[in-house]
């Protein structure tokens, strides 16, 4: 039997933190690609420490629902999953190129395929673009539009900014949007000054966060000037300094994220190609029958 275990941060305070994790897990469950799918959390239950024992399968694909490679993916998750032989070198990553490695936990008799986080997978660029389509309601959005990919910044981990820059570069190379820029909460270029960085009148702003919460629903909207008080909400698009800002909220809530989770498992050897096709079709509105 094969299981997929999605590990995410979760929250002691915000009940919506786990919502995207559950939603993507359910999308993948519905494909039947795995015998079991289970969610595990740092701050909720089952905790990382106990999630592996909740699945029956002896082959387990663990995909971290995290944006960047760093403290959580390299230290906390492997330690808590008791992947004693883990060494970050096994991912052989430059900060955005983690793949997967196979390890044996010390507390359960299983093989764990420990994958890199969703946030640094190439497919994440597509999710950012899909997010731009969702928020504008325009499947061809791009021409005449700027796109800002927003990240937390370097607070604890330089890879945090790398992931943002990586996707901004990849999307710029698609030659779809007039301008693409990485912006940050904690460092320059700052999201507060979003309109300074774009010439385009219309700017889509996509925060590279897994769940909506304090940063994406309070901080960023106020910092960008979408609203004076997050509690009163904001318009989409919102007029700021002569620009129209299309603010999407956390990219992690985009249904296509389930595809990135599957891509991670596929890269680690899971036979889920059919599920990937199905999830892409379902979550991008593409016509399955037509292809």
């Amino acid at each position: 039997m094969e299981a997929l275990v999605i590990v995410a941060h979760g929250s002691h305070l915000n009940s919506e933190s786990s919502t995207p994790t559950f939603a993507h897990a359910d999308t993948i469950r519905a494909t039947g690609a795995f015998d079991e799918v289970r969610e595990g959390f740092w701050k909720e239950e089952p905790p990382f420490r106990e999630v592996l024992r909740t699945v029956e399968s002896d082959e387990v694909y663990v995909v971290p629902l995290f944006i960047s490679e760093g403290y959580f993916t390299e230290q906390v998750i492997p330690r808590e999953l008791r992947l004693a032989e883990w060494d970050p070198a096994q991912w052989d990553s430059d900060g955005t190129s983690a793949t997967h490695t196979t390890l044996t936990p010390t507390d359960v008799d299983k093989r764990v395929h420990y994958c890199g986080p969703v946030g640094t997978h190439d497919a994440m660029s597509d999710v950012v673009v899909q997010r731009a389509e969702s928020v504008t309601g325009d499947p061809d959005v791009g021409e005449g539009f700027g796109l800002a990919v927003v990240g937390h910044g370097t607070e604890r981990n330089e890879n945090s900014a790398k992931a943002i820059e990586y996707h901004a570069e990849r999307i710029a190379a698609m030659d779809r949007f007039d301008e693409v820029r990485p912006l940050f909460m904690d460092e320059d270029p700052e999201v507060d000054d979003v309109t300074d960085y774009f010439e385009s009148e219309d700017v889509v702003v996509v925060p590279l966060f897994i769940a909506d919460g304090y940063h994406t629903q309070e901080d960023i909207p106020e910092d960008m000037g979408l609203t004076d008080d997050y509690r009163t909400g904001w318009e989409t698009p919102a007029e700021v300094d002569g620009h129209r800002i299309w603010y999407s909220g956390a990219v992690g809530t985009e249904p296509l994220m389930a595809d990135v989770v599957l891509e991670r498992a596929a890269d680690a050897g899971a036979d889920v190609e059919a599920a990937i096709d199905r999830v892409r079709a379902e979550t991008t509105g593409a016509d399955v029958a037509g292809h």
Partner: protein
Amino acid sequence: MNEDQVEALAEAAADRVEFDGFAAAREGEGYVLATEEGSETLVHESDLGEAAADYADYVTNWYFWHAGAPQAEDRWAFLRWLEDAGERPVPDRYDALAGDGVTTAWGQLRVTVTADADGRRRYALRHEDDAGAADAEVTDYDDPLDAREIAKHDDYDRYRPLKTAPTLRTGWRFPDLRPAALVRAVDFLYPASVANWHRERAGELDVSHWRETVERQSGIYGVVETWDRQEGYEHVNWVAEACCVDSQCLKRREWEYDAETDLDVDGGDGEFPCREPCSLVIAAARQWTKLEGEQPRTYEFELTPSEKEQVEDIIDAVAEGRTGDVREGDVYDGANRYRARFLRAKRFDDEGTLCGVPTDPDGDDDE
């Protein structure tokens, strides 16, 4: 009992079946069927179906546990435990399963298992407080995944980060779950409870005590380790009393200060164990580590005896989570809102300082 079951029995009897007080074995051209109650039948193979009908409960019981129930050890053991299968003989158990069913408590859950004529088990899952609720009073669910939403908020719509807090919402029911679905629903309501319960029964529960758990922490939680200063474990008693007693968490605390040093606080009576300090305990301990770094000071406040007792009442009401139960008009309760507002009006100064006594009389830092 159906034909598939008889066929399966015939096949398995070749290697001898022995299960729950029933035995079936190949003998010559036929089979021997026997029960622990002393009944024994020797039949020709062509008559197996007819003979097996006399042992229908035993046969369907054997079939269910080998072909109907999930085979993963922990899930299998849990489902067996729910109907007291190890202890209760088949005839007696089947009488109960065919009638009102066998009902067992698991945390705040109430699980009732019934069986049909083919021994197929069905499970009804609900909150123990809804045991007598009429159908119209509860919302029915059939997808175990919905249990995640049920577990998320309490009856007052407050978020429940700790799934084993005794605050599970009421007003719902899974009336008819198959065995695997039952286990999944339970695992969403009380994650990993079945797996850890099973490990404990097998004598293999991997307990991580306080010391090793705090030593493992890193990042912002690394500081908790410094709370232990090799000066006893009284602070950990306080943590356990604050967070881990039955009124706060339904898991039975099995972790202690370390492998040699038990805490003085009772671990509780929960059915399933707690194998290490959870993330909420660690997050709270981080805050206490910071707060407990302060040195005590002597303050002088002027309070009437009733006011002193009122402060105690308020702390007690908050600690027991009963502030919402104090009636608006109950001015005889020290934790009543008007009483608290009166105390504040009388004893706090304009800065909200109790009796005007500065927190830090020597410094300019009014923390």
